[in-house]
């Protein structure tokens, strides 16, 4: 029986309703005469405490509240890709059709077009015994993506007693019926799933394949694995969003779910404007054909911000269950935590650090644990993954604040954005001394097998230069660079070249925005070789200033944007130029010595 009660109290997004004895915890309810969508977050006697996902301006005690009997759920089926949703899976395009350029409240829509016809190819036969998660058939959702229609994961399975033939059907068509213990279950191309409940799988594996993002500092120095977790904390202006956009654009995953959680409206628009025109380097199709956006911008209702994270991750898990690699990008988890804090405050719960509720850590853990590489339920056998990358916006760029400190506990790759680097326009401003990756060993096998066996060593050698520079910097700060011996000055020079030529990457440059793994490796190789050769020269007694004035240096640094990925062989020419110039120094010097 659905609960029917009355509002007794309103304060911002929080509403109390009386007469709600039969309502369940986390049930979705319709609030007020304009039927705003809300969710029950506490029950005391007959009083339900409701967070409302829309503006409550004008809401008054006495208005009705009606339960729906359902927890907050998403509708999963063909038609999700390419859409932009709000925090509770309402398509913003549909909202715009109903209320224009500004979002009014009380608008009801369906998340996917149930009338649209898709060409369905069955994969089951009558009489087969099937389990939850088994693929019923497939449709082409976009030219990039074959969408598998799954038996809902909460189904008890059974015997197929009916399956339609290949043909064009809309989503309301019953495509198959299964029978279990004499009960018939009709199946359509979509099903519902509650957002707060992780979708089940058969088995979970360790991540071993790197997610290639085309960003040098990420792929080469601090890689993340498919099915892994990573966080990008950084103060404002350090380039969190740009880095996330880069991952969403270039990551070699099949599907990207981008959650704009409490961030700028124009950033979502930017994705909407840019992605249809950007071409995926692997499939040559527009990126929008693999992207789903969940947008709760900073001025949209705060409670829906809390839901947006769950909506996004449930959609990601759905595509994982088809056997795809999915990347979920959440910008920013801090705004989600703030939404939790705001509701907690209105519930008058005892606050922990900085007013955040004491369950902040467990909620963060639950969210990041929904990442992983898994074997999906049902047949045929297939593996998929969800990689979660979350931005964190620490107040005052202080990494000791609660959201950052708790997040670090649950992720394995940490990209620390540095305000000082951003001020000197070193982008991406990922601090190479503070950041780390827990997947380094796991993914080195992939690099060895697919790109080069030298990857691990080259990475270590170049990183070593950066580490030495970090120590030397302290001395330079006190005594100036001239106080150092030439070999150490070379380390400084080398670190500068690696910083500009490798670590810095211009996302807005056509060529530099994506750097494939092969080019990455070759660039690092060139730098390491340059260092070793220079060191030899110094040991042979040549001077550092000759090395410093080598014309190859600017070319090495600019190779990242002067040589595109398709012409990566040109780096070979650069290498031979480098060799020539080193030889010149060698012979030149000898001549000078002969004259003397």
């Amino acid at each position, binding site marked *: 029986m659905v609960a029917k009660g009355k*509002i007794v*109290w*309103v*304060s911002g997004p929080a509403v109390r309703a009386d007469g709600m004895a039969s309502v369940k915890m986390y049930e979705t309810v319709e609030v007020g005469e304009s039927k705003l969508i809300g969710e029950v977050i506490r029950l005391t006697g007959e009083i339900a405490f409701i967070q409302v996902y829309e503006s*409550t*301006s*004008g809401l*008054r*005690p*006495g208005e009705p509240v009606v339960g729906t009997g359902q927890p907050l759920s998403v509708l999963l089926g063909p038609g999700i890709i390419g859409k*932009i949703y709000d925090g509770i899976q309402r398509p*913003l395009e549909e*909202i*715009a059709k109903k209320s*224009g*350029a*500004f*979002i*009014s409240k009380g608008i009801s829509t369906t998340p996917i077009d149930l009338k649209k016809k898709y060409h369905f190819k069955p994969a089951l036969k009558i009489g087969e015994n099937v389990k939850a998660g088994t693929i019923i058939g497939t449709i082409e959702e976009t030219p990039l993506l074959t969408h598998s229609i799954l038996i809902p994961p909460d189904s008890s399975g059974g015997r197929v007693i009916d399956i339609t033939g290949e043909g064009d059907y809309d989503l309301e068509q019953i495509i198959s019926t299964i029978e279990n213990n004499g009960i018939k279950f009709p199946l359509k191309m979509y099903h519902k799933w509650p957002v707060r409940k992780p979708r089940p799988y058969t088995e979970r594996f360790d991540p071993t394949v790197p997610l290639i993002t085309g960003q040098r500092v990420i792929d080469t120095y601090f890689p993340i694995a498919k099915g892994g977790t990573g966080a990008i904390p950084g*103060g*404002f*202006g350090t380039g969190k969003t740009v880095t996330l956009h880069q991952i969403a654009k270039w990551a070699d995953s099949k599907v990207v779910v981008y959650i*704009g959680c409490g961030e*700028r*409206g*124009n950033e*979502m*628009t*930017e994705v*909407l*404007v840019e992605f249809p025109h950007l071409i995926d380097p692997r499939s040559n199709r527009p990126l929008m054909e693999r992207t789903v956006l969940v947008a709760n*911008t*900073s*001025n*949209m209702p*705060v409670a829906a911000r809390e839901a947006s994270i769950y909506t996004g991750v449930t959609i990601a898990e759905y595509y994982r269950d088809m056997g795809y690699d999915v990347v979920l990008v959440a910008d920013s988890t801090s705004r989600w935590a*703030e939404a939790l*804090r*705001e509701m907690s405050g209105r519930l008058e719960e005892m606050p922990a650090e*900085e*007013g955040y509720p004491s369950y902040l850590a467990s909620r963060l853990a639950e969210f990041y644990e929904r990442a992983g590489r898994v074997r999906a339920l049902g047949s045929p056998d297939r593996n998929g993954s969800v990689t979660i990358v979350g931005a964190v916006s620490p*107040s*005052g*760029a*202080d990494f000791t604040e609660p959201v950052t400190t708790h997040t670090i506990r649950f992720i394995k790759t940490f990209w620390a954005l540095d305000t000082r680097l951003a*001020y*000197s*326009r070193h982008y991406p401003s990922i601090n190479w001394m503070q950041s780390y990756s827990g997947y380094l060993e796991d993914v080195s096998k992939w690099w060895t097998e697919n790109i080069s066996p030298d990857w691990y060593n080259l990475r270590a050698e170049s990183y070593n230069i950066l580490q030495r520079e970090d120590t030397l910097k302290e001395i*330079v*700060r*006190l005594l*100036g660079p*001239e106080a150092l011996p030439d070999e150490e000055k070379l380390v400084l020079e080398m670190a500068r070249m690696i910083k500009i030529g490798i670590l810095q990457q*211009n996302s*807005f440059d056509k060529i530099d925005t994506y750097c494939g793994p092969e080019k990455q490796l070759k660039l690092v190789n060139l730098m390491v070789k340059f260092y070793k050769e220079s060191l030899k020269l110094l040991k042979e007694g040549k001077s550092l200033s000759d090395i410093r004035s080598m*014309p190859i240096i*600017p070319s090495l*640094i*600019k190779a990242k944007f*002067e040589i595109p990925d398709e012409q990566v062989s040109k780096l070979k020419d650069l290498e031979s130029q480098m060799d020539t110039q080193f030889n010149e120094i060698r012979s030149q010097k000898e001549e000078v010595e002969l004259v003397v």
Partner: protein
Amino acid sequence: MLSDFSSSSSVEYTKVAEIKGPIIVVDGITKASFDELVEIETSEGERRLGRVLEVGYGKAIVQIFEGTSGLAITGTKAKFLGKTMVMPVSNELLGRVFDGLGRPNDGLPEPIADKFLDVNGEPMNPERREYPTSFIQTGVSVIDGMLTLVRGQKLPIFSGSGLPHNILAAQIARQANVVGTNEDFAVVFAAIGVQYSEAQYFKRSLEDSGALRRSVLFLNLADDPAIERIITPRVALTVAEYLAFDLGMHVLAILTDMTNYCEALREISAAREEVPGRKGYPGYLYTDLANNYERAGRIKGRNGSVTQVPILSMPADDITHPIADLTGYITEGQIVLSRELFRKGVYPPVNVLMSLSRLMKDGVGEGKTRGDHMEVGNQLYDAYSRSQEVRALADIVGRAGLTGVDLKYLDVGDKFETYYLKQSVDENRNLEETLTRAWDILANLPKGELTKIKDKNIEQYYKEGSKHPTQ
């Protein structure tokens, strides 16, 4: 505003249970809604406006914009008006001056309303936004060359007390134009708790340049009621949105000083005994600020735009202070003013390294401004950043401890400040001049140092040592 107080759906209550700080608690409520507008009448017959913050169990908590001073438990009447706060709008608003709640302040009658708009506005649908890409030439080199303002952007000025933020904002308001169009900007100016002289300076500046007739001013001065400040940016932005999206104008909205706004918010939060976030500001400060700042942008299929330049003074020049911090997370960049440059006599004293325009990349480049614009800006950043490092080093080890290239950077840093950054209050440099000056500065560096610029642009514009600008 709100000439129509006799709404049929209004209900009057006389039972005031509590008065504390800027809020009153009204008892015996049978019909009141969240966010509803309330008219308070004191026992002397004085009328004030308020807004419902919380309602339930027969009680309503009402915030009084004009403050509670002089209110009594008995004899105070509260009339609930049955609607949320609205602002009457029409094109007659141009050239007018209003108070912080949107009531005429220039002695002229209430303008005839074309329609009444809810001052809280509604969130713009990201799906219907038009991405901002039109370059605004402000005539200020450092902004045009390195921190480009784009139509529909929100770019705040982070300042400190005594720094010339208002002078800079007024200069932007006077000089801003989109190259290649003759469209002028309409200016919506909201003074939020600022001193009389500051508001006056701005008004005079608009008057002198003839821009006042296409401006709307909202003045809540330092001695006006503090709680009114919660509404001032909202009425101003409501008008800005109307001018932009209903009348198709390009609007520049200047809000000064947002710090005062945040303090008013904190005052109410404290009176309601809410759990405080950082520095006593409420936990919802981010959301509240975003509700104002996000009211900027462009809409698909409509002509106008709202470009926002909020100004805030950072308490103790601290950029990590919650107000500056949260603002930076919402806005599309920031222009940070530096006390050190101000002391050196550099106007505008913009700390370029801490400043940023997130939309610059979309407003400049081939076909919009010039192909080398972005790269030159990046190289200048790089060079100036390097010069600052060298400067710090030179302070310790002296010039003798520096290498030859370092000395060049030292020189470039000085020239950047005096020849590029510095300009006068009425100097309107076009983009061509700004870029030429940039190349003049870069000419002081060897070619190999220009690692952020593509070879073809270096060939076209770079002339080593061609010019050694001094002033």
